[in-house]
């Protein structure tokens, strides 16, 4: 366990030593949230409500998306894919650690760095949209939301791990990367709160795993769910984690048998 903790610490140090580059990535994430919040500001200019949401809650939703990215998110499947494609995995396989540990923990270090350095941007977001934000803090919602955040991070990580392993068969996963982004946009609540989506997409979102990474935790935090929805949602989230875990293990062992490196 200590060696993994060490890798994580090293990753944070790396990001601090290359702070400029990492900060630009944080700006990218912030820019997306600003654009979406601005878009909703224009849409709801003369409206108090959007579906079951107050317009201020919709804008706050994008603020929470920005924050949760640094707790739940962190894309590492491309790093895994590159390790496979370039043959770097060969040298990682002979080390006494999990071969993808550096890829996964490197991204966790990035998230920690992002959470710290993203604070000024968070303040800026609040200042810019101050008059239009509606945040109803309730300890009950915060408490219920915490397990959803932790399990959301596990679920997101498992999907990333599976996507990374697929490169062993496909050699290139840029298409899969775009597809994954879009699926999260549509069914994962990146585009808009799930409750505002058309009914067909809402129904699919409830069944598919993507909602349970980010949107689920934010929905709980914003207090939009009944106790019955809360229980059933948690059950679906747990079921998906189990399914994805089994699949991730299977694809990992199968992939290692299939993996071959050549060249210099």
């Amino acid at each position: 366990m200590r060696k993994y903790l060490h890798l994580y610490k090293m990753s944070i140090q790396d990001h601090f030593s290359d702070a400029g580059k990492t900060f630009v990535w944080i700006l990218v994430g912030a820019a997306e949230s600003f654009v979406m919040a601005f878009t909703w500001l224009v849409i709801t200019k003369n409206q108090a409500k959007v579906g079951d949401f107050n317009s201020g809650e919709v804008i706050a939703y994008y603020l929470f998306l920005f924050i949760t990215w640094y707790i739940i998110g962190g894309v590492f499947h491309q790093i895994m894919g590159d390790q496979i494609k370039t043959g770097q995995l060969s040298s990682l396989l002979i080390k006494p650690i999990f071969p993808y540990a550096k890829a996964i923990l490197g991204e966790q270090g990035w998230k920690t760095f992002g959470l710290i350095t993203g604070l000024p941007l968070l303040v800026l977001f609040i200042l810019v949209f101050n008059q239009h934000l509606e945040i109803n803090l309730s300890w009950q919602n915060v408490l219920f939301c915490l397990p959803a955040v932790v399990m959301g991070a596990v679920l997101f990580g498992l999907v990333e791990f599976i996507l990374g392993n697929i490169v062993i068969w496909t050699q290139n996963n840029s298409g899969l990367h775009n597809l994954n982004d879009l699926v999260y946009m549509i069914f994962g609540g990146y585009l808009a709160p799930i409750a505002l989506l058309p009914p067909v997409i809402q129904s699919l979102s409830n069944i598919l795993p993507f909602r349970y990474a980010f949107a689920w935790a934010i929905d709980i935090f914003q207090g939009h769910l009944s106790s019955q929805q809360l229980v059933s949602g948690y059950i679906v989230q747990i079921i998906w984690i189990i399914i994805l875990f089994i699949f991730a293990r299977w694809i990992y062992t199968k992939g290692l048998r299939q993996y071959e490196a050549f060249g210099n």
Partner: protein
Amino acid sequence: MKPSAIKYLKIYWRLTKLSVMSQIEYRFNFFTEGFASFLDLILYLAFIEIIFNASSTVAGYTRFEIMLIYGLSIIARSLTNRLFFTNLREISMMANRGELDHFLTKPISTLFLISTHKFSFFTFFDTLLGVILTALALRGLELSLSVSDILLIAVSLILTAITFFHVILSFMSFSFWLGDINHSYWIYTALHGISRLPITAFQGFSRFIFQTLLPFILFGAVPAAIVLDRIEASTLLGILLSVLVWIIVGQFMWRKGLASYSSSGG
């Protein structure tokens, strides 16, 4: 046509052919890219649906007018990205690895070769998606494009390409002094979402930023406003001024940067 123009066209054709061949080599990727574009269409239609469930108009624009902005914006983005922009961000990487030498020693324009050396074939799917959305919007608006409309859209597309070519070139030229900053390209893509809002959505400070300083409205809002006959002469004048300024800044930064290039790195 001048012989040099023919030479450049021939080179461009060869580079494009090579890029396409290397990209369709990965079949699985080809299908996932295609499917992703199909999902993109659902995404845009769903978002327009959400918007108009919440409001009857957006900054005075109706459902199909907004769809027209989306369609035209996607077409402009896919064409400009495919032709130049994804290549321009490589300036930053190449300048820091000393790889620019490879381009500088060729007997043709360095900027031409850098900006066209890879052709992003898959964005063709996005162009198709933009055309579908535009057609759906025009049908909904019961409008048909006249020859002059098409010409004006083409002019707007060229202006978009010229402006953002120089915007990205200016930023990437900083890498000659600051090191590899190619990832800052993603700020441009992140801000691109703003181009799907109508001109009337921007007031005060946001108007200055997105109409004058970084005229993202050129992608979709301006050509749509031209088709819908909802654009003011003063807006067009401001955009033209911005285009001119970006050409000067872009060319200046590139030349200055290139003069500082020392071919260091691996």
